[in-house]
């Protein structure tokens, strides 16, 4: 189901919603106040571990014609790439570490080890996804423009191929993400500004050529120094590491908003939405998963998706402690707090993908109460058509993209 008014859905009064907003603001202020040396040490430690793993993996691949070295090298490189994307890149670009005042670990300068240019990611993710989370017709993360993820999205015969598209999306995730901010729907409708498109394509081309050059040309050629037989195994090890990172990040991200219980919203919800209602929408639209500390680090703390969506620019290492408080608030206001083990959360997302490949009449909804809404078109509005951005989702800037004042 999709919700057109979070207040009506939750049966909270204006005062209660405002009170919830104030309590979440207070939690935010508390964490902002207490950020300190231990947090800085955390991100620096993770960065050191990640870079050391990447070096160790790449050095090991100089012996990659020998199977155990291939396995060890690919594994270390894969783990390094996962850490780099999730706990480091994603979170640094949200501005979670900007408070340290360190230009080397800062959202405005960070570039990550994946095909999408950081600047475009900060627009499509920090702004569009985080501000318009789960609003049908606004948030392209709902199915990434190729999957039908909500019953309100109009069915098309092409949706029959969803199981295949899904598998392709998982394997090629970084390439899908690279195209994320292009807004393919706008290009198809010829509504995209050709100048913006040309600039974005230039950025993507440059980024991709550097990424491919590193993983599939220069490093493999270097490993010929210890024997030409290492070149091809090094290429396959790099493919494996990138593939592992793709599938893993795909799965973690699909657990964030698509398990049962994470709700979608219609455009009406955005009208006159207050900050407290924005908080509420983030709580209702996100889903956590449970696991040990290592799992949470490897998933960039996105197992605390609810906390991340409430406070996208607070340091990720603090989400665990914040989740205790957010859960208490959810109980206090009788709000859902969706969580479960990783396999179950992903299983539910996968079931939705499979079910929605068919027209609605063949399947039933897995949400608690069914309130079918009118169908929603594909694509998303341009920046000029949507409300201005809020500051807490992390920065982005691009002159090529029109920028409007904030309400």
């Amino acid at each position, binding site marked *: 189901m999709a919700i057109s008014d979070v207040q009506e859905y939750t049966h909270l009064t204006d005062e209660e919603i405002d009170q919830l907003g104030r309590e979440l603001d207070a939690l935010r202020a508390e964490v902002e106040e207490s950020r300190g*040396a231990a947090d800085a040490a955390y991100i620096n430690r993770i960065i050191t571990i990640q870079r050391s793993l990447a070096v160790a993996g790449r050095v090991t691949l100089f012996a990659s014609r020998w199977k155990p070295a291939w396995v060890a090298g690919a594994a270390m490189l894969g783990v390094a790439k996962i850490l780099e994307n999730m706990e480091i890149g994603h979170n640094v670009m949200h501005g979670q570490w900007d408070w340290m005042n360190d*230009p*080397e670990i800062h959202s405005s300068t960070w570039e990550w080890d994946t095909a999408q240019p950081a600047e475009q990611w900060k627009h499509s993710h920090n702004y569009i996804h985080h501000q318009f989370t789960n609003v049908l017709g606004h948030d392209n993360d709902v199915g990434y423009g190729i999957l039908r993820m909500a019953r309100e999205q109009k069915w098309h015969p092409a949706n029959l191929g969803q199981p295949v598209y899904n598998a392709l999306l998982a394997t090629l995730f970084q390439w899908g993400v690279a195209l994320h901010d292009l807004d393919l729907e706008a290009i198809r409708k010829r509504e995209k500004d050709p100048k913006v498109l040309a600039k974005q394509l230039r950025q993507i081309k440059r980024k991709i050529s*550097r990424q491919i*050059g590193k993983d599939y040309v220069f490093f493999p050629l270097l490993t010929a120094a210890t024997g030409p037989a290492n070149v091809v195994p090094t290429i396959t090890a790099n493919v494996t590491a990138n593939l592992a990172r793709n599938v893993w990040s795909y799965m973690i991200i699909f657990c964030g908003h698509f398990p049962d219980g994470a709700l979608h919203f219609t455009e009406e919800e955005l009208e006159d939405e207050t900050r407290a209602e924005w908080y509420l929408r983030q709580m209702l639209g996100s889903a956590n998963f449970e696991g040990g500390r290592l799992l949470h680090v490897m998933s960039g703390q996105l197992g605390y998706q609810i906390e991340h969506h409430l406070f996208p620019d607070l340091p990720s290492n603090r989400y665990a402690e914040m989740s205790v408080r957010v859960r208490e608030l959810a109980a206090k206001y009788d709000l859902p707090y969706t969580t479960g083990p990783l396999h179950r959360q992903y299983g539910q997302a996968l079931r939705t993908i499979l079910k929605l490949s068919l027209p609605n009449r063949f399947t039933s909804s897995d949400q608690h109460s069914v309130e079918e809404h009118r169908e929603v078109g594909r694509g998303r509005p341009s920046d000029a058509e949507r409300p201005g951005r*809020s500051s807490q989702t992390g*920065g982005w800037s691009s*002159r090529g993209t029109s920028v409007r004042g904030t309400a």
Partner: protein
Amino acid sequence: MAVIDRLSWARTAGARLTTPLHPDDYLSLVNPLWTARELRGRIERVVPETEDAATVVIRPGWGWRYDHKPGQYVGIGVQVGGKFHWRSYSVSSPPKRDGRTIAITVRAMPEGFLSQHLVGGLEPGTIVRLALPAGEFVLPDPPPARMLMLVGGSGITPVMSMLRTLDRRGTMPDVVVHYSSTTEERMIFRDEVRELADRHEGLTLHRLHTDDDGMLDLADLDSIVPDWRERETWACGPAPMLDAVEGHWESAGLEESLHLERFTVQRDGDGGEGGTLHFQNSGKEIEVDGATTVLEAGEQAGVGMPYGCRVGICHTCTLTLVSGTVRDLRTGDEHDDSNDRVQTCVTVPVGDCTLAI
């Protein structure tokens, strides 16, 4: 130079292997000084000078240039509570092309949390960030024949760098140093200055302990240094002292021969044209003239602007320019590329601008 060219070629090639990071990001894992991305230095030792002042000896890392001009200052960024805080301090050591370390001398100010940290809390081995030497309060080469140094308190540090340079080069001209300090004990470098004065015939030292004898009345200069009007003068000390000196020299029509160290922006470039500044993330706007820096404008508009040294050396205040043009007050250079990182404390708007904050 050939070595440096080869190095930079190797770095460019290396960057293809480390993209999107820089080779230095990996090399600094081996030795924290092996990176030139953000200049770094390692604290070698902290030498107490007086009860509340200390000389901090720093070993700079890659990318440092040791050929600072005597009298210049450097920026130093120290991570306290996870956050980098920046200040600028005069270099007290003389420039050496083959140098390995630089020294700054810092007095712990009662309200100065970073200066207290530098004097009292820095362990040798700590890695700090550095900004290259800057400042126009420098010793000319060759030095003028007759000089006057008016020093108040910790204002001695840039002057010390000049005196040490003159001493080392053996080119001490006719120099008069008038050094005021509240008490004898708080006088930084008192032994060294006295020793220099003993050794160099051309160096005359006047010391004044202001707690006992009161502040220097500039009218008394006529009797202390009768030929002060013929001397090129350097003054460094607290702001009220500098204001008084500036007024005194101006009324004598001698501002051309006066050098002041104020730790403020040297506005050599032209101002901007002014315009409306729009702060994208906070949605705030303000219209300002061409003399108001982006930083000042943001503060007036109530935007939580980051700032550090406020004189363009520490880069703490740097923000991303989304659209428009700003002009650097120091150089007159204009920045008009989207995504340019601009130092808000030394730039003014040229027409309407949007910044990402």
